[in-house]
């Protein structure tokens, strides 16, 4: 493993950093405060090619690797966790499964506009009774002539109301296995916004990433064309799990960015803030805290980059992705919490970025597989 980035990745980082500083950072506080989806930023990111980074050029993407994509999410999240997850959900959870499992027609119709940023993507797996336990799915799809008829609902969907194209999972049959247990067969579908019978429910009021549009999706006799089945019928669980492997790299990169952003702010702050006649950075407690934070951030970065590189070179990267997400998310929570503590009273005030970053960081331990799920994934691979 090469621990040095080559020049093109360094230049890509320069680009993402410049964009984040100029276009994203000035809006981060307002996006959090008003909970308004940053549509203007998304349009600018589309123009700059940020919405199709790992998608091949023949499908409208940038033809870069997963590492470049992870670095983009990292740099955006350094200044705004909301913007980071918009790109992550769109790319990892919508572009990627269509690129991996879609037919040529589906790729031309859906992946091309997604990768160009003309359309925004989302992913609907979670239901009220089916979070960590994906087998708990209640949404059903029944084939009726040339159409699938969807009924059910999905919750906590990122880019919920703002997306145009959705990858949705639903139960298409129930089979009995060799031991006589019934098993739900899940399939994946591509659903377009505006399809009759597809509506939006409640907008979630969240602790963090408050500008991301998190909605309930409701399907009531929603008829979609037969050809919008993604991958094979009944193979949706595998598609979801594979998609989440990639998604975890995006969220790990978001967590990494949040931790790095909080660390940067804290370093600036402790050099300026004076107590007892000295900058608080002159106190050993502060120095040790900063040292620990920086060391963990660096370790998290190596893990995230390793997972991203594994996605480019390995057929499966489940463990690498789970380890990166588990570690980066827990580092994000720890580092942002320490950042607030080192800011003292100011850290608890909304004017200071670390307050928002700590709230944003918490979700990285929960969505796209909780930290507990990551531990299950890692240990089951080791103990099988």
């Amino acid at each position, binding site marked *: 493993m090469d621990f040095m980035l080559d020049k*093109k990745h360094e230049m890509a980082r320069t*680009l993402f950093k410049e964009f984040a500083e100029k276009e994203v950072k000035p809006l981060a506080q307002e996006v959090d405060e008003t909970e308004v989806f940053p549509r203007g930023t998304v349009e600018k990111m589309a123009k700059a090619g940020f919405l199709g980074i790992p998608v091949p050029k023949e499908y409208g993407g940038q033809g870069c690797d997963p590492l470049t994509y992870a670095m983009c999410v990292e740099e955006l999240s350094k200044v705004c966790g909301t913007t980071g997850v918009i790109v992550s959900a769109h790319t990892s959870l919508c572009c990627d499964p269509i690129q991996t499992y879609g037919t040529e027609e589906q790729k031309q119709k859906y992946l091309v506009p997604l990768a160009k940023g003309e359309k925004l993507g989302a992913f609907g797996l979670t239901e009220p009774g089916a979070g960590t336990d994906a087998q708990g799915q209640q949404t059903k799809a029944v084939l009726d002539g040339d159409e699938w008829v969807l009924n059910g609902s999905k919750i906590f969907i990122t880019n919920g109301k703002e997306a145009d194209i959705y990858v949705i999972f639903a139960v298409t049959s129930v089979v009995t296995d060799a031991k006589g247990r019934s098993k739900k067969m899940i399939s994946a579908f591509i659903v377009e916004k505006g399809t009759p019978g597809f509506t939006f429910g409640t907008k979630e009021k969240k602790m963090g990433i408050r500008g991301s549009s998190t909605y309930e999706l409701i399907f009531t006799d929603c008829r979609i064309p037969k050809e919008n089945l993604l991958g094979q019928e009944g193979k949706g669980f595998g598609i979801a799990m594979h998609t989440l492997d990639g998604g975890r790299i995006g969220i790990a990169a978001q967590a990494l960015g949040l931790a790095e952003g909080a660390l940067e702010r804290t370093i600036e702050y402790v050099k300026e803030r004076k107590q007892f006649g000295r900058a608080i950075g002159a106190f050993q407690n502060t120095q040790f805290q900063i040292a620990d934070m920086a060391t963990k951030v660096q370790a998290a970065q190596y893990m995230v980059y390793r997972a991203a590189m594994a996605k480019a070179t390995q057929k499966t990267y489940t463990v690498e992705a789970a380890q990166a997400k588990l570690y980066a998310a827990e580092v994000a929570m720890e580092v942002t919490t320490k950042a607030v503590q080192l800011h003292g009273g100011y850290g608890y005030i909304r004017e200071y970025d670390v307050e928002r970053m700590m709230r944003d960081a918490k979700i990285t331990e929960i969505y796209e597989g909780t930290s507990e799920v990551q531990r299950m994934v890692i240990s089951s691979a080791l103990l099988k």
Partner: protein
Amino acid sequence: MKIVVCIKQVPDTKGGVKFNPDGTLDRGAMLTIMNPDDKAGLEAALRLKDQYGAEVTVLTMGLPKAEEVLREAMAMGADKGILVTDRVLGGADTWATSQTLAGAIRNLEYDLIITGRQAIDGDTAQVGPQISEHLGIPVISYAQKIEIEGDSVIVERQFDDRYHVLKAKMPCLITALAELNEPRYMTPGGIFDAYDADITVWGRANLVDVDDSNLGLKGSPTQIAKASDKVRKGAGEKVTLDPTEAVDYIVEKLKAKHVI
């Protein structure tokens, strides 16, 4: 249409400035960026490419490291990059630089040459007009707007309180202001392509119709007597007064310092 854009890798002033013992800049030791006026010139060329179709070649003279700024320009959309680098070209002032760039451009076909008005490390605003003089083509400086009409360019030339509209037949040279436009971002895919592309590297031997006596430090009529880092100004004094009181206050201050 063929457009040549001259760009320069300049020190990023955020990173601090370092000098060689002879007073010239230690370019190898500093963080660098694409000169802002040049970037606006490149953006203008790329917009002409988008609008009318054009081949955009970026040209720079510098250390081998200056290749980075060419790749950046290509990641924004330039088609070709040419680096002119040679030890004998080091320490060039504006005269030797413009001779070098003109010598390189003589190898190329072009309808339009765009340079930045001036570089933030030298602030001379001389190289662009000098290149046009060497090549014997018209120059329009301080462009704030550029349009193409047939075989001519129509340019708004900026002044403090007005602008002139000038029309010139191509080929001609335009010097661009940073205010001309908001340069586009590189694209991630553009960066990957730029690093896969070949950069043309030329040395002294590739320069056409240029005498050795006009190149490098030896060919530079201006020599740097002394250079020093800029002494930072103090924070100054800020007072909040109504306009009449403010005038009195300033006049008193100026009198006290014997300015008036």
